């Protein structure tokens, strides 16, 4: 499937940037703006007041235990609401700064809903060419799983995440941190990823590196030949030599890391981002935002 976001003029999709009460990740925000800019699209910012959190706070026995240990504390609805309000105010400022930097138009919505349902609704409103961006750091104990996102939200072509060690794609003076890397596991997804890669590489003014990931040598060789044919006329694309033949997620993640990418486009449900598996090896290894495509 093509990883695509509708342009603003098409009115068929946006980058949906979802905020919750969790501290936002500036790299994720920048990545969302970058993708919107690359596709000449817009960003819809979704501030989700998790209804479950509010409900939790309503119970008389509601207590909160600090993650770093220490005494428990009572929780109140007012406190939760105040916390959410503060978080969203902070997020707004960051969004405004990032949007101004990349000249992206932003729309805002505040909803009280289940986080997943909020995404579904937002994507369905504009769809089908949306891309979801998760504003908080992926890998922190957030309240959703990627499986759930891909299974539940049908009007999105991909999800953008940023791990705890992610660095900005580029400096304030638009110097890219590295190439756009396409981690290709099969040629079916390659064309779509390449199109998305072209957009993003153009926005970053960097090159594209194609890294082939296969389970066996023969498979790798075949993919190599096909990809080379497809890349014959591409001057800004480089095929990484010695593609990875292991089926191991960590090894693949390590191979990607060595490319020192500014942005990674990978296939969801493959070796690198397995369905039902943990993404920690990927997000922990990569210092760049990741776009996972269907």
């Amino acid at each position: 499937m093509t990883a695509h976001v509708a342009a603003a003029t098409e009115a068929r999709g946006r980058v949906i940037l979802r905020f919750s009460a969790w501290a936002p990740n500036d790299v994720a925000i920048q990545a969302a703006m970058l993708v919107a800019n690359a596709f000449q699209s817009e960003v819809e910012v979704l501030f989700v007041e998790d209804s479950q959190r509010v409900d939790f706070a309503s119970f008389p026995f509601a207590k909160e235990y600090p993650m770093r240990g220490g005494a428990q504390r009572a929780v109140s609805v007012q406190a939760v609401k105040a916390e959410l309000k503060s978080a969203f105010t902070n997020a707004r400022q960051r969004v405004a700064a990032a949007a101004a930097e990349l000249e992206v138009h932003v729309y805002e919505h505040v909803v009280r809903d289940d986080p997943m349902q909020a995404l579904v609704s937002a994507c369905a409103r504009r769809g089908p060419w949306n891309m979801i961006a998760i504003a908080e750091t992926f890998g922190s104990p957030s309240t959703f799983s990627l499986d759930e996102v891909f299974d539940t939200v049908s009007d999105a072509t991909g999800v953008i995440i940023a791990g705890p060690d992610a660095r900005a794609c580029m400096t304030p003076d638009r110097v890219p941190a590295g190439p756009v890397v396409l981690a290709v596991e099969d040629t079916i997804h390659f064309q779509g990823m390449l199109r998305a890669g072209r957009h993003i590489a153009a926005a970053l003014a960097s090159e594209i590196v194609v890294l082939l990931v296969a389970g066996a040598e023969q498979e790798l060789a075949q993919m190599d030949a096909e990809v080379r044919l497809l890349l014959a006329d591409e001057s800004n694309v480089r095929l990484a030599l010695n593609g990875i033949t292991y089926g191991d997620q960590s090894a693949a993640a390590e191979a990607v890391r060595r490319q020192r990418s500014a942005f990674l486009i990978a296939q969801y449900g493959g070796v690198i981002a397995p369905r039902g598996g943990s993404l920690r090896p990927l997000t922990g290894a990569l210092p760049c935002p990741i776009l996972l495509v269907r």
Partner: protein
Amino acid sequence: MFFDRLKKNNNASNGYASQMNAPMPDDTPPKSAPNHAPLSVAELRRSVSPASLGFASTAELEPAVGLIGQERALKAIDFGVTMDSQDFNIFALGPPASGKSTAVRSYLERKISEPATVYDWVYVNNFDDSNNPRALQLPCGRAVIFEKAMVDMIDELRQTLPAIFEDDEYQGRRRQIDDGFRAGQEEALEALTEKAREQNIAILRTPTGIGMAPMLDGKVVKPEVFAGLPEEMRKNVENKIEGLQKELAAILEDVPKSEKERRNRLQMLNEEVAGGPISEALDDVRKDHADIPQIIEYLGFVERDMVRNFALFFAQEQEEGQPVQRSVDTTKDPRFRRYLVNIMVSQESTSACAQPIVEELNPNYGNLIGRIEHVAHMGSLVTDFLLMKPGALHRANGGYLLVDARKLLLSPFAWEALKRAIKAQMLRIEQPEETNGFASTQSIDPEAIPLDLKVVLFGDRQLYYSLAAGDPDFNRLFKVQADFDDTISRTEDNQQSYARLIAAIVKRHELRHVDATGVARLIDEGSRLADDREKLSIEVGNLADLIREADYWAGQMGEGMVTNDAVGRAIEERIQRSDRLRDRSQEGIERDLVLIETEGAKVGQINGLSVMQLGDFAFGKPSRITARVRMGKGRVTDIEREANLSGSLHTKGVMILWGYLAGKFAEDIPLALAASLVFEQSYGGVDGDSASSTELYALLSALSDMPIRQGLAVTGSVNQMGDVQVIGGANEKIEGFFDICKSRGLTGDQGVLIPQGNVQHLMLRPEIVTAVTDGLFNVHSVASIDQGIEILTGVEAGQKDASGQFPQGTINRKVEDKLRAFAWRAGSFASGNGVGLV
């Protein structure tokens, strides 16, 4: 009553007894004085013949090396420098321009050619206490090498360390630690979450912690729904939640411990990874400085600190909105200041290790001791070891420090600081406000450096003696006085040496050579500067200035050499530049604004002479001195003193007059005299006793009614015995009166009386010598008042005969008679004739 007693004792055996009743005036015509020849021409100026010098010009002479005539001082300097003791510092005393500084420097420069041990000194960071920077002593010439080595080492690590920490191996090991930490915690929480799910309890993660709530179909139960449940069910849920919360608490209790463990392991990993390259980089520095144990020890501290702070070598995180702060120059990067080296003293190379000779021209506190500078940072003043600056004592350490004493004493705290350093034999940079107990911002306290040097102070004699008398430390620390004389004897040999000194000056200043006539004139001028025909001034500065000016005028006159004419011109021009006030003074006399007579004779009036000193120019000025006498109580009124226009020396001189009069003329009679003396038209104050003989002559004239020749001027002090004593400025005084007489036309009867003792000082202008030769002017020397009064009045002074009487017709007889008459009249008034005496 006194006079009654006298009457009772009045016996006929006393020759004056009959006179006490009615003293008779001496009507005898004055007896002419014997002839007193004036001074001969040869006695007025000593000139050396150019031909007698034995050379044609200074081109033939070997220039003098160093000074001449300063054997005492040079020997003292040699002793002081050679004496290996910190308290035998030197004070070179003498008049300004006597060449003290040049002589000392010249001597030291010859001495430092001998091998000596000198060191470089640097300050480095003290990693245990940054407020106490460490001092390192390095062999001569090694400081610059060490400093560069440290900078190069840091530059190398700036490249290698970041690369190592971005290396796959490090990243993998670090992730292993992080993942291990997270995995342990996450697994426990996931297990608890699963357990809770089985009990329909949801575990919610929040930004600030974890909570639990009842769940149904994967969603948190609405509070209103829960409230609608039976109480037993609700209680059951709450109990489950409570149990799970206890388990959760137990899991979370371990988090801080785990986190600490994670940090420790990360730290160990970082130190292990960083340690290798750091040690390797430092090994290069160690290898090059293996012979300096202090550096090896210091590098150990550096290594430890670098490993601990390896993160300094990574590029700084860019702050939002701030420009990229990545310095290319290591020495300007604030991150690495702690590893840099502050060179305080260094030699250019290891082969240029001579003992330093440092002359500090501005010896204020900071320039001497060094200073600690501060920079403003976010509203406060901060400093570190790199902001320390060396002083002259640092630069002179191991050698010699030359300082002008007066400038040193005028600089606040500087003298005390210098003494402190010499006494302690340690050099410590301190803020003066800290040293003196004033409050200060927090500063640094650097390690003291051992001090080994000799200090040479330069100053005049007055300053030296003031310090010796008033500062006990001075005598303890400056035990060697190098006393520079200002004159040498004018012997044949010294005249030759003087000529060589002139040659040396010519060479040093690259002037035209001086021919024999010019040298002869300069030698004569040397005596004039010394104010003594038997001496030559060796104030080299003044001599050098005169030669340079003569060279200039020689050039103006188109001469290839400096001749007598050029020297004469230089002298005239120099005087002309300075004598504006003399001209005004003379003009005042010529225009009779100031009354000075140069012809005729007057009773009780005489021309006195004084010297006006204006900077480095002095000139003589005549003043009219008058005396009035009458009967009184034996008091000589010094009008200058009464008007607070005279100093104590002048007062002393006037009192001596009284003693002379009383002793000579009133041994057995009361001195019933009231006399007043004044410097007419003098409003600026007088001091000194050089006019006391002049005043006495005026008094004698007034008492004897014998007029004094107004064509003569007089200078000289007198004692109670009537001896005329030496005074200063004889040349200027004679020249001053000569100029007045010359402006009115010399008559041949004009001249000056000077004390006989001053003849040896005469170095009059050639013009005066010519006038005397032509019989138009005279200079007399006198040894006694009697001799002087005879010249001034032309009347014999008179000596007591066997009967104790002064001969009639003599000055002394007339004076005595007048005084006796006063005494008799005073007695008759006292016995009841009414009017009180003053």
